[in-house]
């Protein structure tokens, strides 16, 4: 991976309900998070097909918000963008 390679940060969940709940929590905390399909390469057997895509600079805030709100999630994973590295749009 090159130094300048852009990373996507995906929050993975056991089900859609966990994901939608966390998106509401993050919205209240002023953190943008877009619902995106969870990439197959990081989904594993335990997470569902939806993920929340968040900005790299928001990751610390996301973790803090999750902890403070006791939000459920499966994992946070970073992944280099495969298609159009500048395509990301956030809510």
């Amino acid at each position, binding site marked *: 991976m090159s130094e300048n390679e852009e990373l996507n940060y995906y929050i993975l969940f056991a089900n859609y309900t966990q994901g939608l709940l966390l998106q509401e929590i993050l919205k209240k905390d002023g953190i943008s998070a877009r619902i995106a399909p*969870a*990439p197959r390469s990081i989904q594993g057997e335990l997470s569902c097909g939806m993920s929340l895509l968040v900005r790299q600079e928001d990751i610390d805030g996301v973790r803090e918000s999750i902890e403070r709100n006791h939000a459920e999630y499966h994992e946070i994973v970073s992944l280099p963008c495969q298609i*159009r590295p500048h395509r990301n749009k956030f809510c």
Partner: protein
Amino acid sequence: MIYLDNAATTMKKPQEVVDAVVHAMGSLGNAGRGVHSASLESSRTVFDTRERLAAFFHADSPKQIVFTSNSTEALNTAVKGVLNPGDHVITTMLEHNSVLRPLYELERAGVELSFVQSSRQGTVDYEDFEKEIRENTKAIVCTHGSNLTGNLVDIKRVGEIAKKHDLIFIVDASQTAGVFPIDVKDMHVDILCFTGHKGLLGPQGTGGMCVREGLVVRPLKTGGSGVQTYSKTHPVEMPTALEAGTLNGHGLAGLDAAVQYLEKKGIDEIRREEQHLMWRFYDGVKDLPGVKIYGDFDRSQERCAIVTLNIGDYDSSEVSDELSMTYEISTRPGAHCAPLMHEALGTVEQGAVRFSFSHFNTEAEIDEAVRALRELTTEE
């Protein structure tokens, strides 16, 4: 938005369906619970839907049509209702988890399970069904059409094998009901399981089973039936035997309107339009660089209106996300609840992007989807 996820649910419904549900929401009582006018209107609505579906699938009688909330509930009722520990059941690698998971559950309880294998194209060898038959084989459970590749299974041919060996034949028609003709008698289907919200164009939360007369199926649920209140056991008469609790009358009113729409337009015409759109898409993308299409696209055979593909080694979720965010095209990436089919296709890691079509789609939408894939496959 261009909606190409019709194999998951048909989003666009005939206006008659919408109108019927809205009307029902304001007028139906509880079906089979009393004889006042609101209850009777609900009872008649449910009965009309049974009659219409019985004729649609060539069932013995409307009483053999049982309503469930979807195919999954129908399939659970069917397989758990006829199989017992010590029995052997044959199924295929083409199946959805709505078949697989109940069967795995039964396997843990002592039912023996065999799989008819799939080729890399997602097809089955019909002789394999017969090869898997054992002394204790009780049933064959088989999809009519793969939700991943769109390949059809020749249900009549499998039904003849089941009949020859006196096996119960359970068919998952989730992807085909409402689009392909189904005659349960001619195809020797003992239990047909269908959902209302896909090709039948009805509301979500509707579905059912068409059970051969005389076949006793153990109920999955027991409870309120509106009849035989003082009996400690659930009624055994069909269809009450397999229905407990208030039915989804509002949804069934929509399903009834949907089947009327299908009768009026004709499923042959619907199928012709869907096939035209599917082949237009297939021809537009099959030679794009890096595109790999899964399934059997032999033009001499019919198939569900599904084209599933990958682009190079791109993660299918990222491709689907790009199609959604940049082109507003809705597709389904990932595993599609069909784990064994993905294993057979070699797509467990990458998943695949499924495009599935409705006769409500237009040629312009198909061309836009082809253009989007052309851009994605040729971008630097």
